[in-house]
């Protein structure tokens, strides 16, 4: 039932000023995101050498660099490419949660609730439009959230999730702006580091990478690159914006 229906949410819920006025435009967006965009994410997970039964953290130096975008993009692409595999995205940024809002779902129960209960709450695993993709929002609120990600409970929960899913992606907090960033990254088998072009400096990136075990680092994604130089000029000088 779900597979043949695409839901068009209220434009205001997406923060869009211009409404998706026609079905044609909405369908074009959907096709772009699912097909053209997929190839980009496909390239990322291939080069990051993601494997099954792995827990992968997606982190960055500062907030707003596109961790969640990359995390969701990779997750949804893998979920489509491997329909028999079970993929889970866990939102571990307890201070700036966005998943519940983006997906239009209730915040609770989520990660915080699981950690407080010290067990995996099945309702915290939210189904998505893709049959094999689940998300776990941050949940909450909790008075303990400052230290929840530093307790042994999180390790137990992650191991539990690893057993239940073929791939667990942790949408981790920013390393330099959130003290939970490095501990969450250390829970994962691998870390994909996201750098938004024009945001963090090279010094900040290096400083954040110093907090990540080099053996865990699967690679860095330069996100949202953009060039304003006309193509003819780039050809003339022989450079690409990447």
């Amino acid at each position: 039932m779900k597979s043949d229906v695409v839901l068009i949410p209220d434009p205001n819920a997406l923060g869009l000023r211009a409404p998706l006025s026609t079905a044609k435009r909405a369908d074009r967006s959907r096709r772009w995101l699912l097909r053209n965009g997929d190839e980009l994410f496909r390239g990322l997970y291939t080069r990051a050498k993601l494997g099954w039964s792995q827990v992968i953290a997606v982190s960055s130096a500062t907030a707003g660099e596109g961790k969640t975008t990359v995390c969701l993009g990779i997750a949804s692409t893998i979920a489509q490419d491997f329909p028999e595999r079970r993929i889970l995205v866990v939102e571990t940024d307890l201070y700036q949660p966005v998943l519940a809002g983006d997906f239009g779902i209730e915040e609770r129960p989520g990660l915080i609730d699981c950690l407080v209960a010290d067990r995996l709450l099945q309702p915290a695993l939210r189904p998505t439009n893709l049959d094999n993709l689940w998300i776990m929002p941050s949940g909450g609120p909790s008075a303990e959230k400052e230290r929840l990600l530093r307790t042994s409970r999180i390790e137990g929960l992650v191991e539990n999730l690893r057993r239940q899913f073929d791939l667990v992606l942790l949408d981790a907090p920013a390393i330099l702006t959130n003290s939970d960033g490095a501990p969450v990254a250390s829970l994962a088998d691998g870390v994909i580091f996201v750098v938004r072009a024009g945001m963090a400096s090279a010094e900040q990136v290096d400083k954040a990478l110093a907090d990540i075990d080099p053996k865990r680092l699967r690679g860095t994604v330069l996100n949202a690159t953009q060039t304003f130089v006309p193509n003819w000029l780039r050809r003339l000088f022989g450079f690409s914006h990447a």
Partner: protein
Amino acid sequence: MTTRFLEAFFRHRWLVLAPALIVPLIVAALTLSAPAPFDSSAGIWVERSTYLNLTSDFNPYITPAQNQTNRLNELMRSRSFVADVVDRTSLAALKSTAAGRDQISRVFADGLEILPAGDHLITVHFRGETPELALEVVSAVVAAFNTWSARDHTSQAKTAITFYTAQLKDADARVGSANAALQQYFATNPGLQAQNGQLTAAAAFDARFNELQRAGQNATADADRIRALMRQAQLDVAAAQAGQELGFQILDAPQLPTTPTRQVKKILIYPAAALAGGLLLSALLLLLFALGDRSVRSMAELSPQAAAIGVMPRLTAKGMARSGGPAIVRKGISFVAGSAVTVDTGARLKV
């Protein structure tokens, strides 16, 4: 580095180009909208002082015109002379307030030009907002300079007359004593003069007589020279008192300008200078944007330890407004892979 500058330029192109575009436009608009000025000028013929050379302030190594130009320019820096000039114009009403005095200073600083145009000719030129003001100021400067020059010359001439009078008195005394000595020598040496009053041949060989005769002639010549100088000084005083300064003649009297001055140079130069300034400002802005941006913008700027695995171009979902901000793609992905359970606020599309 070229890449960085190109990126910075095209990323902030309107901001970078703004000074180079806006500044010349503003300056051109201001230049064209400014009222056209009116020019008036006068030519003054000046001479070197002919008496009291030792006490004259004339520099003998520069021309009279340069000398008087320097003098007039110096006078224009004095409050009393400027006040005298202003009193002769319609600007006099402005003297009572500080703002008015500032305005007067600006009017003179911006519009008045005093230059030598030869060895003896000075030109006084003024550019004013109205033809009347241009004429008034040039006339006032010339008149004031004439008055002050005449006053100075009168003063100097009177001093010279006093000096020459004393000199002449001494010279006349010397002539008198020389003549007396000569007469006495004749009296003691009657053989020097014949019955008819002519000198005898013996007089020609009398050394003492010749000496006394030369002294008398010298004293007389000296007295004559001093008398001539004194007459010149008396003439200067008389001329100055009559308003006709000798050595100061207005050859070209100031005239009322009938048409505004065309300012082709100003119209071209000011916007060109503004363009140059604007370009400089643009270059500085570009430098600031290029060197001030220390963020990572390409894989080449990542350190080797970052192990770059890919580049995600800035995604903009077609059909979705850019105003959705940087989270629009994340929201789009969430929307596509969104929960089928709780999103129920929009329309449904069957595919």
